[in-house]
């Protein structure tokens, strides 16, 4: 994985000093809260319902054991002993004191981490595929480009006060595991005539106006990606709407201009920008790429897994995914235990995962947008030992992509934007489907819950989506069906009138009953829905 050089370290250290000074000026009253707000937001510090929340960047979701242990340390020392992994592959702490924030940033900087641009109307953490580098179907490891974009976007002076936040995703497989087309800019690395380049999508997103991003460029050579993206951003910065924050994302600009006109303006700007010498040389990409070469895999390992322990065998079938290297496997660690909070982990759990990564997975971890953790490269021979350790720590749930592997935003339990709670609904649904046999029978079913229209819980992209709304002062939940954040990206449709908390759990179960009754061989919930349409579900739920 990427390792800072003296320049990267100096920039992060400078940010700590910067924020320490800004915090000092706020605490002394030199800065009003209004003046301080955009400064702290640029550093991932939000004021929530009960306390400050600090969002720490995990660039493209990759981190080392040492970095993971620092996240545990922060949870222990400055928070209530846990952290919350997010759909942006970051981690949030919900109980931070303002006066501690500079020290937390200093601790993070000591392990090459930061909270730069984890909020604010700027370019946010670059997201990527959690199986980057180990998936057999990728044309290249996408992370070197993500790192190149991370550096380019850090403190970019022209794009620090955009109309709205800006999210970029880089993947390199036809299978989309990162909801790439629901980003402001999605980049799919592709190979053409033996050369790697970017297929670019723009104007995707969720929120109030969900849109699957249209393609705007079929191929940009790898050493011109920065100038192309810069041109996309400049057109957006100049012409994106600023009169209404709900219409300020790039998706609205692309829709209002039309894809062809937006493309034309970007091409015109790009033709100019390419002449400015702003693209880093290929040598820089090569330097970064050298950090992402394969680890020293052992060869001649067996692919056999001893499945004699039935609980272990179930876990393997659910959580373990094929690795490109014989004898190795990808392990998904579920952060969705029954009755738990999706994405939460205690400091002890975070430490344990870090230990396992250091010992068994080349000291590397990934955070997924589905709020789980991935050990990217473990020997199949070590799987049983790893499972035992995870199981003993409450991390042995076998529910990857099943109905209880729920994505949920923090909701009204924490978030000042929320209209309704997400976590209790997630917990009730998980209880309802707790029977492992039933869950497995239903199979892949991506259920996603947002506590408000901002859609941090990706409800538009759920096979089943739930949106919490405020209806005359009471929490109400809408049910959506048919969304997908994968390569077959689609947006869910609202089934009908909303429900109360128990009603929504019943409605989800009725939807799964329809699926079980109607499915044909090999069909997932989403496939059945797409074949039979909304009506049978509607009748069962409201009939």
């Amino acid at each position: 994985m990427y390792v800072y050089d003296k320049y990267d370290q100096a920039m992060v250290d400078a940010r700590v000093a910067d924020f320490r000074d800004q915090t000092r000026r706020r605490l002394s009253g030199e800065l009003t809260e209004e003046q301080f707000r955009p400064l702290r937001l640029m550093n991932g510090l939000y004021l929530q319902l009960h306390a400050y929340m600090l969002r720490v960047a995990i660039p493209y979701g990759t981190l080392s054991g040492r970095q993971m242990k620092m996240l545990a340390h922060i949870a222990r020392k400055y928070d209530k002993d846990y952290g919350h992994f997010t759909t942006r592959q970051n981690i949030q702490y919900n109980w931070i004191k303002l006066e501690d924030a500079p020290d937390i940033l200093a601790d993070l900087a000591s392990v090459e981490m930061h909270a730069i641009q984890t909020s604010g109307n700027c370019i946010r953490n670059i997201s990527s595929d959690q199986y980057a580098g180990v998936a057999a179907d990728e044309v290249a490891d996408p992370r070197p480009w993500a790192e190149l974009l991370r550096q380019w976007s850090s403190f970019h002076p022209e794009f620090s006060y955009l109309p709205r936040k800006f999210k970029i995703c880089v993947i390199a497989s036809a299978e989309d595991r990162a909801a790439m087309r629901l980003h402001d800019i999605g980049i799919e690395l592709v190979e053409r005539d033996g050369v790697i380049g970017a297929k670019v999508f723009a104007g995707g997103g969720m929120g109030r106006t969900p849109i699957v991003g249209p393609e705007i460029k079929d191929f940009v050579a790898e050493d011109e990606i920065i100038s192309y993206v810069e041109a996309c951003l400049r057109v957006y910065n100049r012409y994106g709407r600023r009169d209404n924050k709900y219409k300020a994302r790039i998706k609205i600009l692309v829709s209002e201009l039309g894809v062809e006109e937006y493309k034309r303006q970007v091409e015109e700007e790009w033709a100019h920008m390419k002449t400015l010498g702003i693209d880093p040389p290929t040598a820089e990409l090569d330097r970064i790429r050298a950090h992402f070469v394969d680890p020293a895999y052992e060869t001649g390992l067996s692919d056999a897994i001893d499945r004699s322990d039935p609980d272990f065998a179930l876990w393997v079938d659910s959580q373990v995914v094929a690795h490109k290297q014989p004898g190795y496997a990808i392990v998904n660690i579920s952060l969705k235990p029954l009755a738990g909070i999706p994405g939460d982990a205690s400091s002890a759990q975070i430490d344990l995962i870090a230990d396992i990564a250091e010992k068994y997975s080349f000291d590397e971890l990934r955070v997924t947008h589905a709020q789980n953790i991935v050990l990217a490269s473990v020997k199949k021979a070590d799987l049983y030992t790893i499972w035992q350790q995870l199981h003993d720590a409450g991390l042995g749930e076998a529910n990857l992509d099943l109905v209880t592997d729920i994505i949920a935003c923090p909701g009204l339990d924490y978030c000042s934007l929320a209209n309704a709670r997400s976590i209790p609904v997630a917990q009730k649904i998980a209880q309802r489907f707790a029977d492992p046999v039933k869950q497995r029978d239903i199979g892949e079913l991506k259920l996603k819950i947002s506590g408000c229209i901002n859609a941090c819980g990706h409800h538009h992209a759920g096979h089943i989506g739930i949106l919490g709304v405020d209806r005359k002062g009471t929490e109400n939940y809408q049910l959506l069906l048919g969304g997908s954040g994968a390569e077959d990206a689609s947006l869910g449709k609202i089934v009908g009138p909303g429900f109360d908390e128990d009603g929504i759990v019943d409605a989800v179960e009725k939807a799964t009953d329809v699926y079980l009754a109607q499915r044909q061989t090999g069909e997932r919930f989403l496939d059945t829905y797409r074949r039979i349409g909304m009506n049978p579900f509607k009748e069962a739920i409201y009939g």
Partner: protein
Amino acid sequence: MADVITFHDDVASEEPAVSVDCFAGQTNATAVRIEPGEDARVLLPDLGRLSLVEVNFPAFGDGRGYSAARILREAGYKGELRAVGDVLADHIPLMRRCGFDSFAPRAPVDPAVLEATLARYPEVYQKVAESERPIWSLRHG
């Protein structure tokens, strides 16, 4: 006139700046003010006669002026480029990089804070102005 902070050797221009709309019709005007939403590129044919361009920031959160400044510098504008309005010390380093060389903040800026802020970041990650040497260039000599 409010205090102007300058980063160039000349005396700050006191030329009254006309609006972009007026500028086209006033062939003797040498100072113009760009409001957010106005296209800096309409000035490009007349850069030669301009000695001052003011870019107004009615609210700091509206970052269109950063693009306007860069566009003017990319087109070769060498005159004074002034950020006016809701400009805080923390914005000035970013604005400097986009090409602004003078500032007329609505509220006074503490010189000590400004000095510390300007000195804080040792390098830059991007090549934004012609003169900048970004980190990737330092790495590869």
